[in-house]
């Protein structure tokens, strides 16, 4: 039974949380990588875009709750998601019109666009704080657990419990559906293909009659959806706090770069690489180890490689390793 218990503990504390977190990072990184591929800059405002979309969803959730609408065991936020996406899309399109369009027409260097996106980041950050404040907002009103730890113990007779939170299950299901739709769109629709063509070779896309304005517009719409979904899933799973979204920028970028900037499939792989590394390296393996080790060898320490606060160091270390040995990322992004 001991190895089974170890496996259950490992799944409970590492595999399940990391899968959910990885899915959230992957969705965030997909947004970053799409913007990089089409608009050709690293968008520093992406974390705050996620926060804005999540905020829109939270406000709509509150409105639905006030109206007495509920999805039963599922969080009401899922119902409010389209509102959040729409709000985020309006914000992004407006930003593009007021800010980015000017620089695009001038064909400025990408680094200047990055600096511009810093200014946008400030504005979004201020907007979110302005509207919803800086505090934690818990908006998950669904059932807490899909499988509870006690329930699992009773079912299996094991010592170790395994809990799957509803938010984790929802994260994975939503992410899979979102990614499937995105890839279907990119690979099988005329507009999606024209986006890939634009990302591949902008000049030739123009010669083929692909309208850059349309491609850019569609890109922002998709980014709004991805960012909002990522933001809401992260908020459901953990909690909504504007500042943590800003801090997500680092792991999200690390995921996009590790996968290869501009490569959607890379962004997904990168998200899971970063998430699993973070969770594994900061998990205290004492419990798992003691299930596996003979009694005489049991350890007292936490067997934790890094303190939880060093999770940024993990993203960073993986990023550096990839940059040193394979600067184009695992999936050969477009960055030379």
């Amino acid at each position, binding site marked *: 039974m001991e190895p089974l218990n170890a496996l259950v503990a490992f799944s409970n504390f590492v595999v399940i949380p990391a899968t959910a977190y990885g899915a959230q990072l992957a969705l965030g990184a997909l947004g970053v990588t799409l913007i990089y591929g089409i608009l050709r800059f690293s968008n520093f405002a992406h974390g705050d875009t996620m926060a804005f979309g999540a905020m829109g969803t939270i406000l709509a959730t509150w409105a639905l709750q006030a109206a007495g609408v509920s999805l039963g065991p599922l969080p009401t936020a899922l119902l409010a998601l389209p509102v959040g996406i729409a709000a985020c899309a309006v914000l992004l399109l407006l930003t593009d019109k007021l800010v980015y369009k000017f620089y695009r027409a001038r064909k400025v260097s990408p680094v200047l666009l990055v600096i511009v996106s810093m200014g946008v980041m400030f504005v979004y950050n201020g907007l979110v704080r302005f509207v919803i404040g800086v505090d934690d907002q818990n908006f998950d009103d669904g059932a807490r657990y899909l499988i509870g730890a006690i329930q699992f113990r009773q079912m299996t007779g094991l010592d170790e419990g395994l809990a799957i939170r509803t938010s984790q299950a929802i994260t994975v299901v939503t992410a899979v559906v979102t990614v499937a739709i995105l890839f279907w769109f990119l690979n099988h629709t005329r507009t999606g293909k024209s986006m*890939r063509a634009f990302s*591949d070779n902008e000049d030739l896309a123009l010669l*083929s*009659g692909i309208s850059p304005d349309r491609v850019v517009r569609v890109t922002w719409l998709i980014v709004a959806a991805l960012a909002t979904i990522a933001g809401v899933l992260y908020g459901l799973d953990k909690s909504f706090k504007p500042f943590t979204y800003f801090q997500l920028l680092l792991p999200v970028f690390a995921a996009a770069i590790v996968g290869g900037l501009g490569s959607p499939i890379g962004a997904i792989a990168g998200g899971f690489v970063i998430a699993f590394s973070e969770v594994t390296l900061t998990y205290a393996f004492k419990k798992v180890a003691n299930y596996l080790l003979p009694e005489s060898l049991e350890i007292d320490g936490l067997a934790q490689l890094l303190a939880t606060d060093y999770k940024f160091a993990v993203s960073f270390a993986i990023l550096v390793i990839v940059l040193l040995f394979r600067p184009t990322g695992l999936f050969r992004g477009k960055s030379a």
Partner: protein
Amino acid sequence: MSEPVLIGSGMTGGYGAADILHDCTIAVEKGRISVIVGPNGAGKSTAMKAVFGMLPLRQGAVRLDGHDITGLSPQDRVAQGMAFVPQTRNIFPSMTVEENLEMGAFLRRDDIAGTMEEVYHLFPILAEKRHQPTGELSGGQRQQVAVGRALMTRPRILMLDEPTAGVSPIVMDELFDRIIEVARTGISILMVEQNARQALEIADTGYVLVQGRNAYTGSGAELLADPEVRRSFLGG
């Protein structure tokens, strides 16, 4: 002689203050092949870009079927039946052969399956590799994709900027054969070539440019026979 399908006449202009083209005239007739040759830096590619609207002209005009199109953007010219194959970066490398062709036909709303079959017929190797990303193909195959993509708009005029740059001599001969085949279907070809001799051999009309000016103009055979042209540009 009737008016050519496409003519850029008396073109003068450049990117900055200095002109690159000086009173340069380039024309192509229906179903014929026109070739622009000349030494490096003679403005060959620039002349073609001028015809395609990628260079601001100070003087001169471009006419398509007798209509003045000097003011049209390159995109508008594509819609008018001109197709352009750039020298480099002329495919979508991460997309498959078939997707490249589809993108070529992006502006078309009708059924493109027929045109695609024609392209595959012209370049059978592409039919074999239709589901492969073009970035993985050889240099010659990529050029075929590039030409195929341009043909997907069913253009009346196909413009090629050094289509044989960087491909082996065998592939080059093959590519020229295909270009002749395209011309036989009634599509006019305007081509810039580095390999002057081979290009003039298939040319109905040849333009020798020197420093942005028309130096010699004549049929391909005439130019090949002209001792002056042979000595100066064809290496004897």
